[in-house]
């Protein structure tokens, strides 16, 4: 199946096609192109590396949204053993924009909560493209409370453009559901390890976004609002999204610098979608390490640290007194 291709990835495809042709030729005519193939591979690697080193914030947003980028369900399939999905908020319905359940990561029993965007059209529609309704946040809270009751750490995967913008979401209290999660997660008596795997935008991200350790994949982004949403309001046209992406400081490096993100998880050459398996292996290792680290911290201390971490974010100054 042809891989979806971003504009700046197109030059890679040309090299890849050359390599494929040489390999085919080798097989059919029994000749040796290995030196040439190696040299093209080298150029390809250099080109991918140079391209990714120079990505603009708006291009990073495109990578974070890449159609082939691994989603929560892919990471669960890759490294969560014996996953037992738990469904429904016990109030209204099961929101498939949020996946919840029990599972094991590196032998450790955990509760999983993550946004799910869906891969094909049918799945995307069923998942509301990863935009959760109140019932999604309430299901997440129900499962986090279960985790607290049975002493399981919570592992979250963040990947959303925001909560679902709809009449039903408003009628059922989307703001209430997010606010309650913020309050309850602040005092949840088990460790929380979160990872922004793709998009972390708006209150919809934050509704499952509080963590003792927040990891962020190298080409994920985190923002108060999507660049398009910001541009539509401040520039009065969504076409200014690239400018908004620049102004919002939404890349992993910025997020780490301002103290919201604790660790940037490096992605494979050319980003997660080019080597999903390698990405999953790296992420599993990093999450496992954080789980072991947090396990050693007594609960009181953990909650104290969590509060301080949330408390200290922000930049203010005293005005000169007149």
């Amino acid at each position: 199946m042809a891989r979806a291709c971003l504009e700046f990835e197109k030059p890679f495809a040309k090299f890849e096609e050359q390599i494929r042709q040489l390999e085919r030729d080798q097989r059919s005519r029994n000749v040796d192109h290995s030196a040439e193939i190696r040299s093209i591979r080298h150029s390809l690697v250099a080109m991918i590396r140079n391209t990714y080193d120079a990505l603009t914030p708006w291009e990073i947003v495109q990578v974070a949204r890449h159609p082939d980028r691994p989603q929560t369900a892919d990471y669960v399939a890759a490294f969560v053993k014996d996953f037992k999905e738990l469904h429904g908020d016990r109030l209204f319905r099961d929101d498939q924009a949020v996946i919840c359940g029990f599972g094991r990561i590196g032998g450790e029993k955990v509760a999983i909560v993550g946004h799910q965007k869906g891969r094909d059209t049918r799945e995307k529609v069923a998942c509301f493209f990863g935009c959760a309704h109140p019932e999604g946040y309430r299901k997440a809270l129900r499962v986090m409370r279960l985790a607290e009751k049975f002493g399981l750490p919570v592992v979250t995967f963040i990947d959303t453009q925001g909560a679902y913008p709809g009449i039903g979401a408003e009628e059922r209290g989307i703001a209430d559901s997010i606010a309650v999660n913020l309050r309850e997660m602040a005092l949840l008596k088990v460790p929380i390890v979160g990872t922004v795997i793709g998009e972390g935008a708006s209150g919809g991200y934050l509704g499952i976004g509080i963590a003792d350790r927040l990891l962020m994949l190298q080409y994920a982004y985190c923002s108060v609002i999507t660049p398009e949403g910001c541009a539509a309001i401040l520039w009065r046209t969504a076409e200014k999204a690239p400018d908004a992406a620049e102004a919002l400081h939404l890349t992993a490096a910025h997020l780490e610098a301002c103290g919201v993100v604790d660790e940037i998880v490096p992605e494979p050459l050319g980003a997660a979608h080019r080597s999903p398996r390698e990405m999953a292996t790296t992420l599993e290792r990093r999450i496992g390490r954080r789980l072991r680290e947090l396990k050693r911290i007594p609960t009181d201390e953990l909650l104290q640290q969590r509060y301080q971490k949330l408390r200290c974010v922000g930049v203010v100054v005293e005005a000169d007194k007149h």
Partner: protein
Amino acid sequence: MAINGRTKKKDIPEGLWLRCPGCEEMVFRKRVEENLHVCPECAYHFRVGARQRVAMLVDTDSFEEYLPNLMSPDPLGFGDRKSYIERLADAQRQTNLYDAAVVGRAYIRGRPVVLGAMDANFIMGSMGSVVGEKITAAIERATELGLPLVICCASGGARMMEGILSLAQMAKTSAALARFDQAGGLYIAVMTHPTTAGVLASFGSLGDIILAEPGAMIGFTGPRVIRQTMKQDLPEGFQTAEFMFEHGFVDRIVARRDLRSEIASLVDYCD
């Protein structure tokens, strides 16, 4: 994210008369002001600034302000069609405030409380680091002092010009409220026009008791965005105080003139 669709400027313009958006009548400005900025003809609730809000709620001269000089240094160097620095300077000039919230200690009909009020005229009442810090400090003081907390919300949501720092204020204020709640404190949230987006999805919705002024716009996502997604017209009265009341997210809709006595008697039940 700040909503800036439907809420047009409803400040009271200079001049002797003004047109009431509620009844479309020309009303005498002084009569509106004397009536707590409520139309004497149709009870339309005009916007009030943070200082006016404090003044109409607290006992005379009882307000002791916390952190009055806090302001934003524009941490991202943000600019769109206009720079954030300019927007801040304009808003400061228009409102005579350093940012969109005022917090402090006060007495309401003799009851000591910690009070916060937001100002919708300061960059849409949006929440950046300063608003988040002031609200959090107020919650922490209420926790230490064992006092009831009252916050009058008026906000378009998280302030885009401070990016993720603004979003983080939602988590910060909510975490402080979690501790306040655990300590047994009473928090009365008052939703005034407009209470939306990131403020509604954090401290705005976390009141033990939630009051709302009649006709206030209250909602998470902006109506324009919802209309685009749903590709249908929004129901009559969607995202108003009355709509939120009907759906179970507001305890009581309270007219402005009754707010003081309502708060005082609720405090008496919960001390």
